[in-house]
């Protein structure tokens, strides 16, 4: 029975993925993509990677899906000056794509028999960092340099999105107000759901140290709540040059860097945690990160600052 479900899931994944690529109309493709994202989180659960499943559901299909829907909605009227590719080209592209796919599939049988994995060393070194969740351990202890750089990547993404504002709108308000007037039903949701969301997000961040969860997932839920409030027009998003917003953005990276440099003094290596203090430092770092991730993800989805009237 076990593999039956997997077979069904794998086939479903392929079909839904294929459909979203083949779909003629952009909006259908995006909606199918969101469904594909949810199926993918299921697949991650089957692969015993709960953390990844959460991240995939939150960021992979949720945030990305939302972004794509907004884009598809705005670009729907695109008079596509479509470059008509000849029939032969389609076939050629299909052949090459199939070759790549078959090649990759064949590799499965060629990977060396004995799986070489780092699971054992991680488990053995994890306790002295005080963390229970091995994935959080890798993210924040063993390969914390990657995570730090990834924060910088997020900052750069924000810079990239803000770079696309018009000079006149700089310092303005990121425009994501889909509903101008107060909309009774959505406002209801925007009032009832966020509190639950905040509690849930904080729980996930806190629990992340020991059970699947953590800064990313918590941050994304917080961002979702913030987006909901912005979309419903309950609260206008802050101006991007407002100091509190900027501090919130840089809070996570600043704490991360500070702890990193602290490592220089105590055990003498950048990003090394002093004995026994690992857990509290990591938790402090995670809370700051959750705040920053929530704000950055929200701003990324809200897009570059726009003039007052622009939709």
């Amino acid at each position, binding site marked *: 029975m076990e593999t039956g479900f997997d077979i069904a899931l794998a086939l479903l994944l392929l079909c839904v993925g294929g459909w979203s690529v083949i779909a003629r109309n952009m909006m259908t493709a995006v909606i199918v993509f969101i469904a594909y994202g949810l199926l993918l989180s299921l697949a991650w659960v089957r692969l015993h990677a709960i953390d990844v499943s959460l991240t995939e559901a939150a960021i992979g299909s949720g945030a990305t899906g939302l972004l794509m829907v907004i884009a598809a909605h705005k670009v729907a009227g695109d008079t596509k000056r479509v470059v008509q590719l000849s029939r032969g080209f389609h076939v050629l592209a299909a052949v090459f794509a199939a070759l790549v796919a078959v090649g990759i599939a064949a590799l499965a049988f060629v*990977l060396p028999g004995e799986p070489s994995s780092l699971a054992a*060393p991680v488990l053995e070194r994890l306790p002295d960092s005080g963390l229970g969740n091995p994935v959080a351990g890798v993210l924040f202890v063993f390969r914390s340099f*990657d995570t730090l750089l990834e924060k910088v*990547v997020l900052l*750069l*993404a924000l810079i990239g999105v803000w*770079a696309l504002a018009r000079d006149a709108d700089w310092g303005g308000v990121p425009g994501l107000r889909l509903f101008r007037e107060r909309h009774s039903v959505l406002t209801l949701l925007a009032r009832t759901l966020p509190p639950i969301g905040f509690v849930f997000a904080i729980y996930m961040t806190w629990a992340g140290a020991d059970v699947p969860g953590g800064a990313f997932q918590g941050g994304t839920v917080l961002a979702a709540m913030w987006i909901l409030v912005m979309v419903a027009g309950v609260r206008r998003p802050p101006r991007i040059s407002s100091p509190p917003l900027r501090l919130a953005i840089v809070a996570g990276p600043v704490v991360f860097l500070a702890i990193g440099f602290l490592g220089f003094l105590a055990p003498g290596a950048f990003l090394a945690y002093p004995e026994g203090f690992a857990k509290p430092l990591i938790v402090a770092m995670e809370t700051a990160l959750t705040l920053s991730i929530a704000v950055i993800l929200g701003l990324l989805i809200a897009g570059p600052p726009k003039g007052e009237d622009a939709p």
Partner: protein
Amino acid sequence: MMPLQALAVTETTPGGSLLVLGIVMPAVALVALIGLGGRGARAIVIAALLFQLYVAVRVALLVAGTQSPLAYVVGGFHPPLGITLRADGISALMMVVSAAIFLAAAGFAWKDFAQPGGKPEARAPLIFWSAMLAMASALNLLFTSSDLFNLYVGIELLTFAAIPVTAIKGGADTLRAALRYLLFAVFGSMLYLFGIVLLYGAYGTLDISGIAAQLQPNAATLAAAGFVTVGLLAKTALFPFHLWLPPAHAGAPAAGSAVLSALVVKGSLFLLMRLWFDTFPTLREPADMQLLALSGALAVIVGSVTALRQQRLKLLVAYSTVAQIGYMFFVFSLAPKGTGEAIAATAWTGAWLQVVAHAFAKAGMFLAAGLAAEVLGHDRIRDLGGLSRRAPLAVLAFALSGLSLMGLPPSGGFNAKFMLLVAALAGGQWVWGAVIIAGGVLAGAYVFGVLARMMAEPAAGASLQAVGRGRQWIALGLSAVAVLMGLLPLEPVAFLAIGRAL
């Protein structure tokens, strides 16, 4: 003895912390820039870039002094679990080159991206300076990290920093160029990522020397090498995959395109060198290396011919980048597995001389092209007349850079081409030799075509703006460095071999 494969990393060497600082300090500056809302932006940037130069020079001195690579174990966890940074000869060289060019570009853009009085922060300055800092940090990471996934994050950071610089002017075609660059670069990095999946599956570690130690030529490794290489080719804009480079580099502001062409493109090339000479030393199969060299040769010929036919100056200089990148790929075929010691050493030095000489010459040339566009108000090559009267130093900078690109002595470009030619002809590879020479002739044609027009009389009624002398001196300084490299002796440079074992 010119060994070409990296030594294994053991412990943090003294001075190793410099490597981390080289990466983290620009990130700190970036965070400060965003957090402080653009107040004192330029001061932060200049301080950070000066610090970069200090770090780079110290690293270079340490590496040269101890004749051994610097290493740093981040967080105290040794590979395969943790990440280590390692600076050998070529990393130190590239760190110094990138620090110098960043400082020059920052000096050049000092006025254009100044904070406007009154309003605390404007879009362009914040975006430009943040992007420059991020590029500096990402490049240092690429030059020193020896963990493949860490390098992936570094390459992505580099691309995300390059996109806003390309799109900062905001016109429809710069936006289109930036979008095409982003989509193609992400496609490349996904292929690179899949290569890493295979390598981790096969060896259980992502550390370069870790993989090199247990390397067996099984199918998974070979496939991984293929995916990673093709992924990086997409990001290095080698000939068939160069669609994004010319519009992106031509659309960026002058200082931006100088950094993009001189350094950003070299980041993924550096990775390719790390890959084929450090991670898979025994995999350098002549067949594939010839394939790389073939597309390099095509890049040289097609890039130069297309550059010859361009109407706009910046596009010409961008296509010249596409052509010059082709030269750097000859090192793969000139030093495949099992070539003689001397030839490999000559080809290795020739390639790195070409990388550094092209970096300085191209940076100088793009700055000069930027000045030309400012003086004339357009950059149509046909009516560049009168530039020599208004901005003589810029024309001299363009000429000196042209000298290096053409490969005329005394210039770094000539030394590089001479070494590559010696390696090619000594190895009996006539075709690559002929292409190197043809490339020089074609480069001469398009550089001379532009120079002749720059020296011509100004078109009637052309209004020429004056341009600051300081910025012309910066462009001239960069080109002069490329020319002064010509004084280096024409033998393999030992510094490039530090930290490598055959």
